[in-house]
């Protein structure tokens, strides 16, 4: 499943999609950034409600395939600008973290 396909399949909003063809492998949900850095894996889809600029650094360092903001959370202009510069895929889900995870679970391989 690619990031582009996931957006289409789940009805998410693409906020910054630099690489729609990027493959997703597994997912991780969490808001504490050090937990995400310690536990999330490369190519995961990362579900979070945290939307400050540090999220982009963490997404870059862990090398997740995309960040899915749950609950319709939308990051500010500066964060979106940095995401664009760093080619980080950002998606907005209208659902909460649990519902988002349930929704994508049918599409993502571990």
């Amino acid at each position, binding site marked *: 499943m690619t990031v582009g396909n996931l957006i289409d399949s789940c009805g998410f909003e693409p906020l910054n999609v630099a690489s729609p063809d990027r493959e997703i492998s597994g997912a991780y949900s969490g*808001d*504490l*950034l*050090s*937990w995400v*850095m*310690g536990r999330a894996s*490369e190519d995961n889809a990362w579900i979070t409600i*945290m939307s*400050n*600029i*540090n*999220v982009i*650094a*963490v997404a*870059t*360092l*862990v*090398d997740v395939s995309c960040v899915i903001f749950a609950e319709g959370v939308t990051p500010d202009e*500066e964060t979106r600008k940095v995401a664009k510069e*760093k080619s980080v895929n950002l998606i907005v889900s209208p659902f909460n973290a649990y519902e988002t995870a349930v929704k994508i679970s049918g599409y993502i391989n571990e």
Partner: protein
Amino acid sequence: MSEELIFHFDVDGEDFTSAGQASVQVKKNLRRLGISPEIIRRVSIAMYEGEINMVIHAGGGVADVKVLEDRIEIVLTDHGPGIKDIDMAMQEGYSTATDNIRTLGFGAGMGLPNMKRYSDTMKIDSTLGVGTTIVMTVNIQ
């Protein structure tokens, strides 16, 4: 004899939002050198945690990343308050960060444990009122 390659960074203690610039840059530099992605991931995450710690607790500091033949060495130096109890600080979940820091998603008490997790060796030298130096190495396979 192979040449030693060093990347030097000043970590700004005032600007919390720019924290991570050094580690993202290191990631780029190591990628150019052809270091394997898994090694790069470990080095850059360990370094980012160190950077964040220096911003949160020490008002900034300096980071030096040395690329040696068999390992990458990260040296983080600050002149902050020092770590009172290193054993406590190494425990997952222990943090002295403020609520303000927590709202940004940090202060989970996972910084030092993550640095240890992602490095092959880690040495902490801290003196109260003087500062802290942390040396981490990640072996290149």
